[in-house]
C-alpha cells in the first residue's frame, strides 16, 4: 500500500525554501540580543553584590620622598574609620592588589615600582549599617587632605540603569523579531493559500472543517520554523563560544565575562521554540481567517 500523503502538497511551496533561512537569521539575531542582555544582567548582579556593603577610601600619594606623610595620613584615616559605628573592617590594600586593578588598563608588567599610586582602603560595613557618607567624607578630608570616599552607590545605580536599558532594548529586539516572524509567516501562508486554492476549495466542499485544512499549514510552518530556529540557535551558540573565547584572551576584567550559564542556555533554547510557536499560531490564524470568507 502506498504511503498516505497529505492533501495539500505544501512541501513544494516556495516558502519552504526561504522561510527557514529567514527564521534562522531572526533567531540568530534574537539569540545575540538576549545573550548580551543576560550576560550584562548577570555581570551587573555580580558587580553589585561584590560592591554592596563596602566603601573605598582613596588617599592620594604625597609628593614628598620616603612616603612619611602618607603613613601619617593612612593612620589618621584608619583611626577615623575604625572609630565609626557600622564599620566592620577597614583594610589597606597592599600594592600588588592595587597594581592588579591598574594592569587591565596599562597592560601586565607595565606598572613600574616607582609609579605613584594612591593608597586604597577597603571598608566593609556591618549588615544594615547606616553611614553618613557626606559627613564621613568631610571628616576624612580634614584628617588627610585630598582623601576621597567612594561608597559605590552612584556607580551601582548607573550600572543598574544601564543593565535595565540594555535588557529593555534586547526585549524590544526580541519582540520586533517575533513580529517580523509573524509577518513573514502571514505572507508565506497567504501565498500557500493562493497556490493551493483549488484543493482547499475541494476539501471545503467535501466537508473538511477549517481546522482540518489549517492543521496542514500550521504543521508545515512548525516544521520550517523549528528547522530555521535550530539553525539560528546553532549559529548563535558558535558565535557566543567564539566571542567568549576571544574575550577570555583579554587581560584583566575589562569586559563582562561571557559565561554560558544554564540561564543563558535556557533563554537561548526558548527562542527557537517561541518562534516556532509564533509561526504555528500565525499560520493557523491566517488560514482560519481566510477560510471564514469562503461560503
Amino acid at each position, binding site marked *: *500500500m*502506498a504511503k*498516505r*500523503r497529505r*492533501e495539500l*502538497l505544501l512541501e513544494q511551496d516556495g516558502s519552504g525554501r526561504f522561510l527557514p533561512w529567514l527564521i534562522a537569521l531572526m533567531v540568530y539575531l534574537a539569540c545575540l540580543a538576549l545573550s548580551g542582555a543576560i550576560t550584562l544582567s548577570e555581570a551587573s548582579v555580580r558587580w553589585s553584590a561584590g560592591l554592596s556593603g563596602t566603601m573605598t577610601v582613596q588617599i592620594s600619594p604625597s609628593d614628598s620622598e620616603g612616603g612619611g606623610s602618607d603613613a601619617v595620613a593612612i593612620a589618621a584615616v584608619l583611626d577615623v574609620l575604625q572609630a565609626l559605628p557600622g564599620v566592620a573592617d577597614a583594610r589597606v590594600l597592599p600594592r600588588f592588589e592595587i597594581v592588579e586593578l591598574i594592569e587591565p588598563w596599562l597592560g601586565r608588567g607595565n606598572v613600574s615600582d616607582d609609579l605613584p599610586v594612591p593608597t586604597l582602603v577597603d571598608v566593609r560595613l556591618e549588615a544594615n549599617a547606616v553611614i553618613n557618607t557626606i559627613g564621613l567624607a568631610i571628616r576624612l578630608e580634614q584628617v588627610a587632605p585630598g582623601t576621597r570616599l567612594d561608597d559605590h552607590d552612584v556607580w551601582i545605580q548607573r550600572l543598574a540603569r544601564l543593565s535595565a536599558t540594555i535588557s529593555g532594548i534586547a526585549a524590544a529586539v526580541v519582540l520586533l523579531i517575533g513580529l517580523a516572524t509573524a509577518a513573514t509567516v502571514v505572507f508565506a501562508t497567504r501565498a500557500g493559500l493562493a497556490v493551493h486554492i*483549488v*484543493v482547499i*476549495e*475541494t*476539501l*471545503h*466542499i*467535501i*466537508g*473538511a*472543517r*477549517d481546522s*482540518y485544512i489549517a492543521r496542514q499549514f500550521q504543521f508545515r510552518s512548525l516544521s520550517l520554523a523549528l528547522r530555521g530556529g535550530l539553525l539560528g540557535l546553532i549559529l548563535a551558540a558558535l558565535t557566543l563560544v567564539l566571542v567568549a573565547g576571544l574575550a577570555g584572551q583579554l587581560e584583566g576584567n575589562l569586559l563582562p565575562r561571557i559565561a554560558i550559564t544554564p540561564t543563558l542556555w535556557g533563554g537561548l533554547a526558548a527562542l527557537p521554540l517561541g518562534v516556532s510557536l509564533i509561526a504555528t499560531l500565525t499560520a493557523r490564524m491566517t488560514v482560519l481567517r481566510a477560510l*471564514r470568507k469562503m*461560503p
Partner: protein
Amino acid sequence: MVRFQNVGLRYGLGPEVLRDISFHLAPGSYHFLTGPSGAGKSSLLKLMYLGLRPSRGNISMFNQEIATIDPVELPGLRRRIGVVFQNFRLLDHLSTLDNVGLPLRISGAKEGTVRDHVAELLNWVGLGNHLDARPPTLSDGEKQRVAIARAVIARPSLLLADEPTGSVDLDQGLRILHLFEQLNKIGTTVVIATHDQGLIERFRHPVLTLEQGRLDVKANGSDMTDLAPTGGAS
C-alpha cells in the same frame, strides 16, 4: 431535502445568472438538470452543494435554513452531499485510494476502515486494480469513476453530478447512470446536470430545465408544477 425559494444569484455586480428559482426536491427523488450552455446549471449545483451563497432568496437543505445556520454546522451538512465535479477535481499527487478515501478521512474514519471501504467501492466501479494509481495516469473515464466513487463513498443523502457523462463514451455513460440509479434505490437523492437529451429520454426521471436563469420543472415532457412535494420536484 432541498428547498429553494425565490433564489437569485449574481456574481459581483454582474447581472443575475439565476432568477427567482423555486423548487423542492423530496428525499429519494432523482432529477435531471438540463439547459443550454451558460444557462446556470453549474451555478445552481454550486448553490446546492453550498459552494456559493445566493444573492437573494432562501435555501433550505436537510430542513435547515442556510442563511441562518451556524457556520460550525456547515461542514457536517456538506458531508451529507456527494459531488461529482465536471472537471473531477481529483488531487493529482494522491493515489486513487487516497482520493476516494478523502471524505471518510475528513470525517475521522480509521485508516483500516477507509482502505476496506474504498477498495470495495473501487472494485465495484471496476478500478480495483488501480488503488495506487495517480489520476494523471488514468483515462478520463477512469477519472470519472474515481470522482464518482469519492462522491458516494460516505453514503451521501444527496448526490449532485455535473455532466458526469461528458467525458466518457455512451456505454460508460450508461453504466454511470445505472450506478446512480442503484444509489437512488437505496435512498440517495440524485440530481444530474447534463445536456445529453438522449440520456434524459432513456432514463425517464423528472427534469429541471434552466433557461436564461429561470427554472422550469417537467417530467418527461409533461408539466410537473402541480405534483405533490413528496412526488419529486414541485
